[in-house]
């Protein structure tokens, strides 16, 4: 099933054209590798999908519905989440609390219950904590559970940031250079997690310069050159 459909989109900044008449589709459970030189428009495409930047022309649909003009918050609530190149973790919370924040959803709980926390709410909190701990165990990160996220190494922070995103209900995950700054062992760990989540049904679009490693997992390979997709759906490349 088609998850994202992008048709003839263009974007320019101060007269400099970044994306030109770009069209592509991403299907459910795809792992798409987005390749391109610096300035090819990869990050701009991510910014446009997450509505951080508005498109000039064209149309963008998610599950058949237009997402143009929605706020970034609405986009993340629809299930499109972006992992930035630099890990965005909550540095002054410990790792379990970081994961807790990722799962806890205040919309499910009334404001009164959030403040006064009756037994039912407390039980929910205990359940979320347990879930966070079990996910850390699954990803073999349980030894970091009580550490403040800010005290972890860059690579560990990146894994935690990724685990947080993985724990959300997101269906489409946009990864901006996920392997950058990681040692080979950590890259392998991340690859393993991506595969695992993909089997669970999550779709990935990955911007990555470590093409060799990314090709190990991708099902589609799109190359952007000066804002134009020069090849699409070339499964043979992956």
């Amino acid at each position, binding site marked *: 099933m088609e998850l994202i459909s992008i048709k003839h989109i263009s974007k320019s900044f101060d007269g400099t054209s970044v994306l030109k008449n770009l069209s592509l589709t991403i299907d459910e459970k795809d792992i798409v590798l987005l390749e391109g030189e610096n300035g090819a428009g990869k990050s701009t495409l991510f910014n446009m999908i997450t509505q951080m930047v508005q498109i000039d022309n064209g149309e963008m649909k998610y599950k058949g519905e237009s997402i143009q003009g929605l706020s970034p918050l609405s986009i993340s609530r629809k299930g499109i989440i972006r992992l930035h190149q630099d890990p*965005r973790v909550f540095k*002054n919370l410990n790792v379990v609390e970081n994961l807790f924040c990722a799962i806890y959803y205040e919309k499910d709980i009334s404001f009164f219950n959030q403040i006064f926390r009756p037994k039912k709410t407390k039980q929910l909190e205990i359940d979320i904590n347990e879930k966070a701990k079990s996910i850390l165990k699954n990803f073999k990160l349980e030894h970091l559970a009580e550490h403040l996220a800010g005290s972890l190494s860059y690579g560990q922070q990146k894994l935690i940031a990724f685990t947080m995103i993985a724990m959300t209900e997101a269906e489409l995950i946009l990864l901006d250079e996920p392997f950058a700054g990681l040692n080979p062992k950590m890259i392998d760990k991340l690859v393993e997690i991506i595969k695992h989540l993909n089997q669970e049904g999550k779709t990935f679009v990955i911007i990555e310069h470590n093409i060799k490693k990314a090709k190990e997992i991708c099902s589609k390979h799109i190359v952007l050159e000066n804002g134009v997709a020069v090849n699409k759906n070339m499964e043979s490349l992956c």
Partner: protein
Amino acid sequence: MNYILHILVLLEIYILLAISANQKVGFSGLLSLAQAVIYGVGAYGIAIFSSHLEIGYWIPFILAIGSCLILGLIFSFIAGKVIELYFSLATLAVQIIFFSVIYNSELTNGSYGISGIASPNVFGYEINSPLEFSIYAGVWIMIVIIFLKRFYSSPLHKLIKATKDDEIAVLNLGKNPKYYKRISILISCLISGIAGTIYASYASYIDPSSFTLDESILILSIVLIGGSGRLIGPIVGALIYILLPEILKFLNIPEMIAANMRMILFGLILVLIVRFRPNGILGKKTFK
């Protein structure tokens, strides 16, 4: 004895004000320069509503706190639109506007202030003496601390701290950072408002000089000295600020000089804290 009780009431009021500022600055990273505005709205609120409505103490009290919360919504709107230094500048503008309004308005009786402010009436018992006020303010501090202790262990508070750490990450997780800022600001305004009502009733007279920009900066300084991001920090900061002049009294310094010495010493402590303990005396090390 009454003098010691007077100092105790002032200490209690400043503890509430510092705890309130800590919620905004320490936990949400919102450096507000209008802390005295909310304090003033609480104080003027109780003074104006109780004198105009003449329906006892508690309805004006609720109206005064309600006014503080409405102002809190305005602050959270600002916090949703501008960040960091721009938020501070916007709150500075609010502080200046507020002072001009209370200084020139007929409703607040301008620079003459309002006198004869109603005292709290608890189960038919009117609170009047410094001893009664110290107990009354102490009870409010207990209520605030019990509430905050519970609140600090809640998921909502975790997300308030998370929003301070990285707003974009919160947004990325499908959560609304503006919501968490709003909650933090409203809690802060609630506590400041309570402090304002206690001050107005205790002093029985208020004028604009108690709600100046200096006062806002002083409240912030108390939090910075004690240590932000912890409940104990602002309490220690308030203790230092209130007890410092009392210590000076033992040095037999003339009255005129002592008053200035107080601010000089307080300023010196602030400089030393910023240099040697940037997170305050009891502040925790934070990651940026």
